[in-house]
């Protein structure tokens, strides 16, 4: 973990929706090879943070640096820098087949041979997708759609994979499988991961470091273990009262 030169470095980030301040001076960094989680309640600004990084939402002030460079202001240019987002609610292209969804994820790449190779890697990770390759995305189950959304994001060959609420609307057994996959992506493929999650316990267990976002501000940060043991986190986000 190269803490000295973070891969993603966010400083004093302020984001407004009209007159409402959604993020108020957020400082956050992600080092190469880390899994970083951002936990927080509904409306804390977690999704806004993700959307701002991928330039879907513009920001009022602050800096977002990625590998030492400012990120582009147009969302379609962000993928080429090596960042992909698995959006909240999966947002797969329902009328397109599994294969087409995956190819859409590889839109910025031109080399057919390498694209096919990446697709095979995705199928190795999610064999279910290969079985359903010609099926329309909309006919898949929720868990399969999440696999497709992650697979689609991997098709761009990212260095930093961001996931917005990957557990949302999934059965507990599927959530476990999903998070196991995220750990594998990090350990075996060396992918750096930033995820935001309402399901604090599972996120804190798997991450190296985490931030607690509360009404647009970082209220706590530490390693996953530290936060899991913190009584304030336990009371507010884990439902544990001592």
């Amino acid at each position, binding site marked *: 973990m190269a803490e000295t030169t973070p891969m993603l470095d966010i400083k004093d980030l302020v984001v407004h929706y009209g007159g409402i301040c959604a993020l108020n001076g957020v400082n956050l960094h992600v080092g190469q090879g880390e899994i970083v989680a951002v936990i927080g309640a509904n409306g804390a600004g977690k999704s806004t943070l993700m959307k701002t990084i991928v330039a879907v939402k513009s920001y009022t002030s602050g800096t977002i640096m990625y590998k030492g460079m400012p990120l582009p202001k*147009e969302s*379609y240019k*962000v993928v080429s820098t090596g960042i992909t987002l698995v959006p909240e609610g999966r947002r797969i*292209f329902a009328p397109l087949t599994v294969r087409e969804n995956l190819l*859409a*994820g590889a*839109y910025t790449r031109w080399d057919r041979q390498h694209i096919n190779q990446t697709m095979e890697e995705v199928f190795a990770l999610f064999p279910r997708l290969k079985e359903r390759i010609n099926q329309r995305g909309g006919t898949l189950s929720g868990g399969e759609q999440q696999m497709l959304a992650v697979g689609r994001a991997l098709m761009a060959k990212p260095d930093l994979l961001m996931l917005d609420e990957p557990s949302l609307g999934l059965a507990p057994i599927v959530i476990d499988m999903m998070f196991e996959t995220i750990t594998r992506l990090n350990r075996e493929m060396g992918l750096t991961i930033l995820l935001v999650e309402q399901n604090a316990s599972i996120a804190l267990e798997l991450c190296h470091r985490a931030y607690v976002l509360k009404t647009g501000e970082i209220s706590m940060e530490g390693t996953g273990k530290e936060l899991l043991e913190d009584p304030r986190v336990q009371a507010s986000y884990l439902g544990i009262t001592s």
Partner: protein
Amino acid sequence: MELFIQQLVSGISIGAIYSLLAVGYALVYSVYNFTNWAFDAFMAFGAFIAFTSISSLFLPFWAAGAISIVLTIILAVSAEKLAYSPLRARKAPRLFMMISAMGVNLAIVNIINLIYGGTFRKFPVDALQPIFIGNVSIGRTDLVAGGISFVVLALLWAFLYRTRWGLGVRASSIDILTASLMGINNNGVAIVVFTLTGILSSVAGIFYGIKYAVYPMMGMVTIKAMIASIVGGLGSLPAAIVGSMILGILETMVSGYISSTYRDLFSFLFLIVILLFFPNGLMGKSVEEKL
């Protein structure tokens, strides 16, 4: 029987032209969620460019067609860049997009009117001798118009379903925001879509001009394309083509067996009847809001 076959061929040919128009509307609607009312002006523009290239510049038909397609593409992309894209950048409601499209339409149609006047003109190509199969005479113009229209539709299908850019257009038509997360540039997609619109409207304008006449308001026929896409079922390319074929054949049958005066009456009646029994169109699956 002879009349039936003649009218059938003619109906398929006019149905193919309606298909080009219906698909042109559907493309813009599916990606940008507004009805491009300027489309019929593009069609008239394309027809007049070809008309002028032949009658004043004495160019051969194929060259006139090529010039018409290129200039109509430039017109359609300019309309996108000058009228639609700035509104999109400011996140204008789609009603404003439509009103802007009407403005583009009025401007183009009136400029054509100023230059050429509002009269009907015969498209300057020599009438092709019909082909006789037994007693059945089949218009060569119908065959050429129908044939080329089908080739254009097939190329469009191949583009949308077999190329990377086509996938970009389809992904954007489903979810423009997520498409941009994949690296699909929305403004690039807009140029592709309006280029296709330019091609479709130009080809349709030329063949419609040959079949009937060239005049500034000729784009009014695009209302038929709307009927066709509603009859087929909104939001799907094959449905638009099926609807267009049915409408084209119905019209030529009415013209042949009843009277051409009642042609449009039957078209609209047909629409009402279809909607009474199939509110989503013949092949439509879900009700979509469409203006």
